[in-house]
């Protein structure tokens, strides 16, 4: 009989707080509530931020998505095979956001309705324009799901391209093309003549 892979000793030699993320996920797969609580504590802020950026100001929905993400993670912990737990959680959250979007009413505003705005010259060195900044969350929320997920991971969560691509289950080149189009759409929506 051949054995491969890793065994993770959970207790008592190693305190559960000392476990790596991957070890915690392994412990979660056994139904360990302490491990689940700890995994939640470690990553809830990032998952919440991601869900909030993806869902805008809809706080109830955001928290529902965060809850659903962790419940799905606990239920699917035995299947985790990746390297970065946070990328895995982002992937779950992104899928849930997409599924949720399918069930909600059509977006209140089409992209075209917000395109009629003052023209702004864009360049990287300019300070953040408060008026533009105020409209940015709504513009992000109007992005198609795939572009929005890529943009949020790269430009808001500052994930590396490789990690964001892993989270979304796409090649890195595809990810960057989505990021490009997301930024370009945002520029167009917020107003730009560059």
């Amino acid at each position: 009989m051949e054995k491969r892979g890793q065994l993770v000793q959970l207790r008592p030699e190693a305190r559960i707080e000392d476990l790596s993320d991957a070890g915690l996920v392994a412990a979660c797969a056994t139904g360990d509530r302490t491990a689940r609580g700890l995994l939640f504590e470690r990553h809830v802020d990032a998952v919440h931020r991601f869900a909030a950026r993806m869902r805008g100001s809809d706080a109830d929905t955001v928290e529902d998505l965060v809850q659903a993400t962790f419940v799905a993670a606990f239920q699917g912990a035995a299947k985790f095979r990746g390297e970065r737990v946070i990328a895995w959680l982002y992937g779950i959250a992104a899928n849930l956001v997409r599924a949720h979007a399918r069930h909600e009413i059509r977006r209140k505003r089409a992209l075209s309705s917000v395109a009629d705005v003052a023209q702004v010259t864009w360049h990287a060195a300019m300070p953040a324009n408060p008026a533009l900044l105020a409209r940015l969350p709504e513009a992000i929320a109007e992005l198609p799901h795939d572009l929005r997920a890529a943009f949020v991971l790269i430009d808001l969560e500052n994930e590396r391209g490789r990690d964001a691509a892993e989270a979304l289950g796409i090649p890195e080149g595809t990810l960057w093309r989505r990021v490009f189009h997301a930024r370009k759409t945002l520029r167009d929506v917020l107003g730009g003549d560059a």
Partner: protein
Amino acid sequence: MSCLALDQIAAAAGEDLDLDHVAECPRCAALLDEQRAIRTLAGALPPVRLSADRRAELAAEVMAAADAPVPRRHHRFVIAMGGALAIATVVIMVAMRGRANDEIPSVQVAQDVPAIELSGRIAMVEPPPTIVAEPIAVLRGDAELTRDTTPERDVVTLRGGSISIDTSQTRSLEVVAGPTRIIVARARAAVTARGGVIEQVVVFAGSVELTADGHRHVIEAGATWDRLLATSAIDEFRTGWTALRAGDHAAAIAAFDRAVSPVVAEDAVYWAAVAAERAGQRAEAARRFADFVTRFATSPRADAARSAIERLR
């Protein structure tokens, strides 16, 4: 001179890469500048933060949702998929039986060797495998039981009496009695049963995982689980939780204070403190949070409790 692909420009903006081509190509330079501008603007967005209270409530909701039984339709789906998988497995095994017999390597089982020390991560990558047989736990006490020891599991079915178990240097042991199951792994504990039902578990070292009523609990060293106490404590905790959600903070505190079993004590002490804070009893809430931090220093909620103490000063 060919221009950069769009993904290269996006990546250059996203990961602050310097591309020689950009210095020579105004078009690509402009695209890159636009991409960086949006990234800069995004970076100026105010942070999204989850308040400590909402975080704690969300944690409780997540844990409750994770503990909830899978809906029946999921059961049916899982059963159907399991059946299909089993059939497929049998077909594949029958088909490959002849070949497999020639390919399976033999297994060496080493007997009468000391228990191996397991700590941290153990990577098992180099065949051929040697399975080391660990000694089984020695049971002490006066109890009516049956024991089923296989290479995979060591299970004691306890009908009555008390046993003390030490698995600190041995294989883990499962104790089953009625609907309650206990896993003693690298731990010392005493278990008492009556009429085929586990009445009490006392943990002296390590921690014991106990599954009762479909829920898994970790009983840490120094704690005692008592069936009657646990049952009533869970009821009390539910009462407290319902009262807290309804805004009846006094009733919530009273109910949480009655939930003293280790199964729910950590949750109950914390939420009693939350209820006190919501009731406007700042000093009492601070005292309760401090008590929580003292008793459950390694709790996932310890940081939230410390924050609350700071907030209440």
